[in-house]
């Protein structure tokens, strides 16, 4: 019998995105540029993270008109963001036929205690993580894909590097543990025990893990692949650069050929000015989006 919304169908969708770049876009024109550059999907937003930072106030799900406009403009999958714990924003995006929902700390959380029970939905979800405990809790709730949190809208890769290294180091540790050590590790991480057993058996996370937050150049994208990311999200890095078409193309190529340094040198030439970055140390605690989510 035909079944929709199964774990395999939802996780499988993310498997198809591996090795690719998912780009933030705010209208049909940007979506077409992203598709032409070779993006594997686009994230439809009202504002890119760096503008969310500037605007301040409460950041919510995008106007459905923008999401619809982007869905009509491209044939690649379209993702959209819902606030952490906002059941109705998520249901609305699902009803609109969005291909993937990002339960995202880039938006202002709607619930400071609970994330969405993502296994309840037919549409798949991607969630941010900073360590294996957070990653495993999100998978436990039904996330079909993960991404590092990084520090969105800063053009600074340092936090994404910290998070991908942390998650992968913790995965390696779990894989190397004996069965009888896993329960205590689950307790320490705040991670579901069964998931740690699955990770140990598989030798990796059971879902795809992309890098996100602060990717601004082709070399940044390649670095995240080198560190073991399955693919890359680029938020403000493309459409806040001087030449979005060239940046988008170059980031796609650098992600595919992340070990081909001569090629990365070639495609990085005369790209123009990347987005202006922010030193994370200059951000106050309340401005740090990565702290959102639990």
């Amino acid at each position, binding site marked *: 019998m035909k079944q929709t919304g199964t774990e395999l*169908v939802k996780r499988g*969708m993310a498997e198809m995105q*591996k*090795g690719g770049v998912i780009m933030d876009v705010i209208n049909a024109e940007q979506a077409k540029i992203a598709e032409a550059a070779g993006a594997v999907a686009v994230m439809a937003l009202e504002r890119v993270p760096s503008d969310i930072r500037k605007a301040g106030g409460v950041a919510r799900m995008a106007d459905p008109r923008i999401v619809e406009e982007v869905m009509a403009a491209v044939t690649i999958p379209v993702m959209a963001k819902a606030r952490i714990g906002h059941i109705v924003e998520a249901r609305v995006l699902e009803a609109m036929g969005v291909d993937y929902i990002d339960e995202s700390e880039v938006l202002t959380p709607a619930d400071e205690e609970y994330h969405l029970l993502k296994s309840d939905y037919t549409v798949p979800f991607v969630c941010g993580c900073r360590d294996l405990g957070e990653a495993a809790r999100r998978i436990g709730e039904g996330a079909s894909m993960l991404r590092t949190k990084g520090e969105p809208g800063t053009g600074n890769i340092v936090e994404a590097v910290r998070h991908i290294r942390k998650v992968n180091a913790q995965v390696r540790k779990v894989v190397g543990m004996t069965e009888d050590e896993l329960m205590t590790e689950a307790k320490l991480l705040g991670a579901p025990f069964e998931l740690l057993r699955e990770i140990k058996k598989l030798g990796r996370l059971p879902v795809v893990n992309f890098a996100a937050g602060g990717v601004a150049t082709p070399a940044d994208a390649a670095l995240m692949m080198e560190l073991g990311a399955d693919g890359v999200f680029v938020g403000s890095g493309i459409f806040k650069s001087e030449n979005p078409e060239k940046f988008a193309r170059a980031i796609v190529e650098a992600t*595919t050929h992340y070990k081909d340094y001569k090629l990365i040198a070639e495609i990085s030439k005369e790209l123009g000015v990347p987005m202006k970055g922010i030193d994370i140390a200059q951000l106050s605690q309340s401005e740090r989006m990565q702290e959102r989510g639990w």
Partner: protein
Amino acid sequence: MKRVGVLALQGAVREHVRMLEELGCQTVLVKHKEHLEGLDGLILPGGESTTMRKLLDRYELMGPIRSLAQKGVPMFGTCAGLILLAKEVVDHDPHLAVMDVVVARNSYGRQVDSFEVNLNIQAIGEAIPAVFIRAPHIVSVGEGVEVLAEHDGKIVLARDGHLLGCSFHPELTTDLRIVKYFVTTMV
């Protein structure tokens, strides 16, 4: 040992590599045209066909892969790979245009309509799990093309001589039978 390449620009590459290794093949990740030398077969995996096409163009892989297909090197395309192989793509320009089938993209709707189902395939076996993700389907086939499986009245697996294409993703499951069919009877 059979030497089988997997187009490794993007998508479900590691899944195909794992299956091929389980079937005792030597695998080659194909990112540049040099990687095509000496292949006994080539798999075009699932992923995003538009992305793969851009990268195929930029790294001048289109011509070399097409001429291998014309020389008779066996190829198997799953989902996006089927779209790459098809001679005609509804409402879009074709890509490699080597397999005599007409393919429609996203035939089942958006991701919320993606599904899994078990297929009985006479030439291969019973109850083969098939995962359809934003899947294409084969609208029609040319003369001499063998229709191997249909679902809901749509053709989802077909063979045109040395070229095999399916709408779904055998690589996402642990069932080796379809890839084994390709490796043992075609490569």
